[in-house]
């Protein structure tokens, strides 16, 4: 198995699928200013996805393009975190998903920018600037909703509770992670978890939110291509044109 390809495609799929979900919200935000803000995040993520797919295609060496990888792989080949394919729900759910991921990717890219792989390090270096802003934006919203009204508090807490089960796999080290870490290319997810949890605790405290139980039964599978039912629908929509009219330029 080409571990570097695996490692890169995970990062690409993460950015692509979350960017896709946020794209669904464009034109439907709670207020104009936040509609624009969410699209900015979506645009950053689509940009990151492109960089990672381009590199993955290069590493794979099979003459694929970024779009071949994004549009012509099926469900079981996708490696994005389960968290990111979860539906947008209400604004509280969207913010909960965003915050849990932003806190993760912020810590992750801090590690990846020191990667011995120059390309991954460079993409991470650029991404960290974007993610710093995303994390600030989503943290502030967690606090606003948590410490806003009784209704908003209940909604964001419920969103976080229901998504918590997808946070376990974010820190799971498999063969690919271990290989990449050993080669100085990948990131130690144990360290990422420590940083992530510290941030989550800090923001939850300010937001007067309760950390979900550490006994939560965690869902996992994305690293093996086993997803929730939601991903299939995302891909059906996303890949529709490429599949219906194979081999076309767009």
């Amino acid at each position, binding site marked *: 198995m080409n571990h570097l390809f695996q490692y890169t495609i995970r990062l690409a799929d993460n950015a692509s699928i979350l960017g896709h979900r946020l794209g669904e919200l464009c034109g439907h935000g709670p*207020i104009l*200013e936040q509609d624009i*803000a969410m699209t*900015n995040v979506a645009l950053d993520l689509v940009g990151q996805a492109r960089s990672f797919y381009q590199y993955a295609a290069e590493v794979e060496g099979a003459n694929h393009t970024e779009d071949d990888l994004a549009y012509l792989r099926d469900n079981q080949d996708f490696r994005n975190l389960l968290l990111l394919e979860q539906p947008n729900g209400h604004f509280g759910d969207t913010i909960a998903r965003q915050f849990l991921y932003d806190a993760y990717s912020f810590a992750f890219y801090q590690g990846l920018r020191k990667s011995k792989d120059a390309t991954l390090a460079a993409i991470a270096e650029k991404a960290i600037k974007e993610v710093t802003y995303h994390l600030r*934006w989503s943290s*502030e919203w967690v606090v606003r909703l948590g410490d806003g009204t009784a209704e908003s508090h209940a909604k964001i807490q419920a969103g976080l509770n229901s998504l918590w089960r997808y946070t376990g796999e974010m820190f799971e080290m498999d063969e690919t992670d271990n290989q990449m870490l050993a080669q100085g290319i990948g990131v130690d997810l144990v360290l990422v978890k420590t940083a992530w949890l510290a941030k989550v605790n800090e923001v939850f405290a300010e937001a007067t939110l309760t950390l979900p139980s550490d006994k939560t039964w965690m869902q996992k599978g994305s690293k093996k291509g086993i997803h929730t039912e939601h991903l299939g629908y995302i891909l059906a929509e996303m890949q529709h044109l490429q599949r219906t009219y194979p081999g076309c330029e767009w």
Partner: protein
Amino acid sequence: MNNWPLWEIFIRSRQGLDHKHVGSLHAADAQMAIENARDVYTRRMEGVSIWAVESTNIHASNPDEADSLYEPSNDKPYRHPTFYDIPKEIGHM
């Protein structure tokens, strides 16, 4: 009551220039106003610094008083350098 107040946004387009009024937007607080301004008014690298002022805090001169406010400076050309004749031989002054 749930409506976010209006803010006036001023942006410095690059170091060394004044902040310039670019428009307004709604935000629940000052912090959000700055972030919204970043998202709304600097999508094409239009700025390096943002000021946000709640619109209710802007006090404006009354246009009906324009005559008394601005006309009087109209007949004082001696405030401008071109009012004075300096011989060519002196050069730039």
